[in-house]
């Protein structure tokens, strides 16, 4: 989709008047739908539909050896799959650049130990730990991928249960583990500090939250902030363009405000999620 100059001007004027093309204010989100436990093969999963953006996030845990320089910590890896269903541009290896960009951002956002406690994933110091694979499948791109993915990742981690290791025995070089067979014996991850990302898209003199793909095309650069418990875990600029330091601070403050609001909305939504409701793509 390419926009003509007239269309761009129309969007720009809308943003100036604080009345965007779909009737929203500058800091409003589009409606979201969140479902959890939709993929049965995974330890935890979530699907988020943010208007036209559709992502599925699944979490799988496997047993691995900790990094030698951090023997007490588990691992987490993000993998993004840009499905060609989203746009033909992603066919073959077309989506790889976007995928690395997003996975690097997520890795950066989750890198700090005050954001996610990796020591909880350790089973035996230096020998065994859990490795969390967070697999993200992008099914449709309707703008604002970062926000949608970060929300879905947080929901999927919330949904994840890790099997309980009852005992670990060391026999020479072998490590034997006794994993609980009981399905209800599971450990839930602590995701209270997991970051949520907010994209602030600069259009004209103002910046908007949750840009549609049309708005993304009119933007002169965006800034993405990852907010974890009111603190910034990652900030970066993207999409070309530059900002005055004062504008930057203003945007960051707005980002923090929106991030906190999003956080509240998500925890409310998660507390209301019911199990075994009608879910999936059929509804």
């Amino acid at each position, binding site marked *: 989709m390419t926009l003509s100059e007239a269309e761009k001007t129309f969007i720009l004027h809308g943003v100036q008047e604080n009345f965007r093309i779909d009737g929203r204010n500058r800091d409003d989100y589009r409606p979201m739908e969140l479902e959890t436990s939709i993929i049965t093969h995974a330890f935890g999963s979530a699907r988020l539909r943010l208007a036209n953006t559709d992502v599925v996030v699944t979490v799988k845990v496997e047993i691995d050896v900790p990094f*030698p*320089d951090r023997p007490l910590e588990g691992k987490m890896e993000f993998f993004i799959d840009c499905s060609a269903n989203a746009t033909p541009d992603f066919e073959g290896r077309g989506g790889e650049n976007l995928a*690395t*960009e997003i*996975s*690097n*951002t997520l*890795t*950066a*956002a989750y*890198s*700090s*130990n*005050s*954001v996610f406690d990796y020591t909880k994933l350790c089973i035996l110091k230096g020998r065994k730990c859990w490795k969390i694979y967070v697999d993200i499948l992008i099914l449709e791109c309707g703008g604002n991928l970062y926000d949608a993915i970060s929300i879905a990742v947080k929901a999927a981690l919330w949904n994840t249960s890790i099997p309980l290791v009852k005992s670990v025995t060391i026999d020479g070089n072998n490590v034997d583990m006794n994993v609980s067979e009981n399905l209800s014996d599971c450990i839930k991850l602590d995701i209270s500090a997991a970051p949520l990302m907010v994209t602030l898209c600069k259009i004209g003199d103002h910046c908007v939250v949750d840009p549609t793909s049309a708005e993304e095309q009119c933007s002169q*650069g965006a*800034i993405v902030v990852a907010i*974890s418990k*009111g*603190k*910034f*875990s*990652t*900030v*970066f*600029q*993207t*999409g*070309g*363009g*530059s*900002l*005055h*330091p004062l504008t*930057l*601070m203003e945007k*960051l*403050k707005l980002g*923090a405000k929106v991030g906190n609001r999003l956080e509240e909305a998500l925890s409310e939504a998660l507390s209301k999620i019911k199990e075994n409701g009608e879910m999936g793509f059929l509804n």
Partner: protein
Amino acid sequence: MPVDHKRINGPENTIPYKLYTKLNVKSFKEALQDAVKNGVRNDKRKLDEHRRIFMKTDIVSQAKGSAYIEIGNTKVVVSVFDPREIPNKNEYSLNGELYCEFKFAPFSCPKRRLHQQDAEEKQNSIVMKQALEPAVCRHEFPNFQVDVYALVLENDGSALSAAITCAGLALAQAGIPMFDIITSVTIGIQGDLKLLDPMLHEETLCYTSINKNSKTGKNSHGIVILSLLNTHQQVTEFYQVGSLDIDDIEECTKVLTEANKVVVPLVEKCLAKHVIKGVKESSQ
């Protein structure tokens, strides 16, 4: 870039021996106390003091423009090549593009780096591209791409900042039209300490929170990289990782904008030197 599958990368799972030496068994707090004593760092710098910077242009003869930078022990070479058509692209693009590749030399870090770009290097390439693009008059070369290759010869902290500043210099030397000189500075935060232009061991200290469980201490930590077009006062890239609150960031931004001002004359001087040399040569 196509990945080189034929290269033998050596054994996959090797560990630097340093992990096993006794010197390494220091707790984080001790390491931090060692790094900063009474507001003076290991190399006798103050907290907000730069390391010594050396810059030189025109060091890779094959490249259109190239530059070399030394910030303390951190050494980076950047080469910039002639604009060429954007590969695999059908549509006309109004603005030219920058292709950035950031690479650590295999011997640049304590742990050996592989020849293939890893995730960190790819991320740094993306940050570098974002930092440089607003500085370049991209409308001057539509449908073309300029390749920028940064190679870190030795990494002793702030390598990405060094690469960005150096790339700005190399782009200017290559005669690529630019709006302004681009400079970049890194700051590391650990608790109340703010370490400008951190060295490698200081950077490592900033990645994890020390006072995580104590309620009294401030548990801010992180790295902030700010790239600035000084005359226009435009931030082209603000990149942060860690966990910081808004006050920390505000303070860092102020410190970093000031710190960038210090670097600008050095870049200018280096460019002027290059121009004078060129004029002399042509007059002879």
